[in-house]
């Protein structure tokens, strides 16, 4: 699934910048700014925050996560495989009559079926979340920015990517400043010759 690939589309070839990174002081300002960026029609952009800002997906116009469908599928698969395993073992694999009971004693299979269903669903939730989020992604242009290290502390950011159809080096930066950003910078795209530094310590 390309888990280790960089979260930058092929289209990035030929761009000199990853895009514009703007820092906002408060969650409220970030929320308002996200609404404005959404309404301005940008599509290749992201909000980056140290904690999930409540309801920000609405302000960003994001669709709900599709993860629950995956979890339902993996959960049912886990339960189904678990039930099949037990039925196979007791009917075909190792048919032993115990206490004069029938071979297909399905009520006794319920606990293990349930447990394996939970295991399947939990694995689906975690691995599916990693896949949807392209984790691990150890290398990202945003880590080039010095101020971006604050994203896991108190920094609330919006990043608009250079390959967005509405993107313009100057206008987008001015647009974000106009929304109340306290810091606006252009983030360079990765230099493949240079080794990536996780954490962006420079």
């Amino acid at each position, binding site marked *: 699934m390309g888990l280790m690939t960089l979260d930058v589309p092929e289209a990035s070839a030929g761009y000199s910048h990853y895009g514009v990174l703007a820092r906002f002081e408060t969650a409220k300002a970030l929320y308002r700014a996200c609404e404005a960026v959404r309404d301005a029609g940008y599509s290749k952009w992201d909000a*980056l925050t140290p904690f999930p800002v409540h309801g920000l997906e609405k302000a960003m116009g994001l669709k709900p996560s599709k993860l629950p469908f995956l979890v339902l599928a993996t959960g049912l698969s886990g339960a189904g495989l678990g039930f099949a395993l037990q039925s196979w073992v007791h009917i075909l694999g190792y048919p032993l009559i115990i206490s004069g009971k029938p071979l297909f004693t399905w009520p006794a299979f319920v606990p293990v079926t349930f447990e394996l269903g939970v295991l399947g669903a939990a694995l689906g939730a975690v691995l*599916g*979340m990693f896949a949807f*989020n392209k984790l691990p992604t150890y290398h990202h242009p945003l880590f080039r920015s010095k101020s971006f290290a604050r994203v896991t502390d108190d920094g609330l950011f919006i990043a608009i990517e250079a390959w967005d159809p509405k993107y313009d080096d100057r206008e987008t930066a001015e647009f974000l400043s106009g929304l109340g950003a306290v810091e606006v910078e252009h983030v360079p795209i990765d230099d493949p010759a240079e080794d990536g530094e996780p954490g962006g310590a420079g």
Partner: protein
Amino acid sequence: MAQSQDNTQEPVAGRAPLIVGGYDFRSLTEAVAVPVERKTPIGWWFFFLPSLAMLGLFGVSIGWLFWEGTGIWGLNNPVNWGFAIVNFVFWVGIGHAGTLISAILFLFRQKWRTSINRAAEAMTIFAVMCALVFPGIHVGRVWVAYWMFPLPNQMDMWPNFRSPLIWDVFAVSIYGTVSLMFWYVGLIPDLATIRDRAKTRIRQIVYGIFALGWRGSHRNWLHYERAYLMLAGLATPLVLSVHSVVSMDFATAQLPGWHTTIFPPYFVAGAIFSGFAMVMTLMLICRVLFKMEDIITMRHLENMAKIMLLTGCMVGYAYGIEMFIAWYSGNPYEQFAFANRALGPYAWAYWIMVSCNVLTPQLFWFKKMRNHIGWLFISSILINIGMWFERFVIVTSSLHRDFLPANWDYYQATFWDFASLIGSFGLFFTMFCLFARFLPLVATAEVKTVLPEADPHQGEELVRVVPAGSAAEPTPQAAPAGGGGA
């Protein structure tokens, strides 16, 4: 501790703060990250070295067990299950509070959980590790312990899935796996925090690898929060099932004293009870040692005391109803088993159990006692002693006098029984010390969401109150900041 603001009383208007001390995002990061980054405090060694010594004892006792066999324990013919099973049930139970805090309180939107859920989940994982050791080592012929799992083998032999002992293998190992995943998912944003603050290359790389390149993208948070919610939803029935299945190890047997339908809910309540007592013990130490009295506040302790009171009363009710049903059943074997439990050779254990588990939490009816650090600490220890004895009473007092009086015997624990019990505490505390030293003790990203400034609509509620007469509730942020003129 003394100057901390009191947040146990709800103010007349608004709500009491969940954390006190005037933290903002930055100082909160600082408060949680610095204990991970600074030089190891002396106090930590004070806890770590004795734990390590106890862990060593665990290793020795297991090694001797493997060499010599289960004869080193005090087991005898009617009492074929001793400390190993008592410890197993005890440790699985301890784990339950962590899942209750991290999953069930999450689903109930009890936001105070954010300060303690990380440590409680870690405790769950370490407790499950301790628990899993015992079924592994008590089987006698440890070299065939893998028969517990449905692995294809040259004998064409498979486990009996109709046996609650196999249900137990699945329930506890899957519980451990899911708890570990839940804990790790919660850790990712905080590992990224430590990575971004790292001063040395080694820290950057090690924490960086485990942080998976997390950069707080909201497109990621969207899936992350959904995954977290679903894990909570999955862990909730799972945790209830685990101790229910553990109880079925006993309840499906025909032995008087075990053959009881009340066991599943009774075991779950007891598990949460003992687990909260353990969280209380650990948090009381950690909040002082890591100077987190303003993050793990009096309110958190008081809430935990309330849950201990509730579950303690449920456990007390279960003890009462067990006695009642034994009498009401009219079954002489049941009646004897319970009379023997309260008045027989193990009466001393029974009354330790009742006084620790039923009487101790009753003092939590009083706010003064719920806010009394010393009493909270003492009661949490007493409750854990009581809950260990509960399992001891269930296992031994039921077994030692079964149907055939010629078989009756008394189970006397040996040195190696105690060594494995103390040793398992060594494993638990060693793991917890390492966790508290190297990983963020508090879920920083989650605690940040309960700070007032994390609310993107901060202060807007007041605006909404003014036009109280209007029918439709207007969303305050509905007006788009239509500056999009690009």
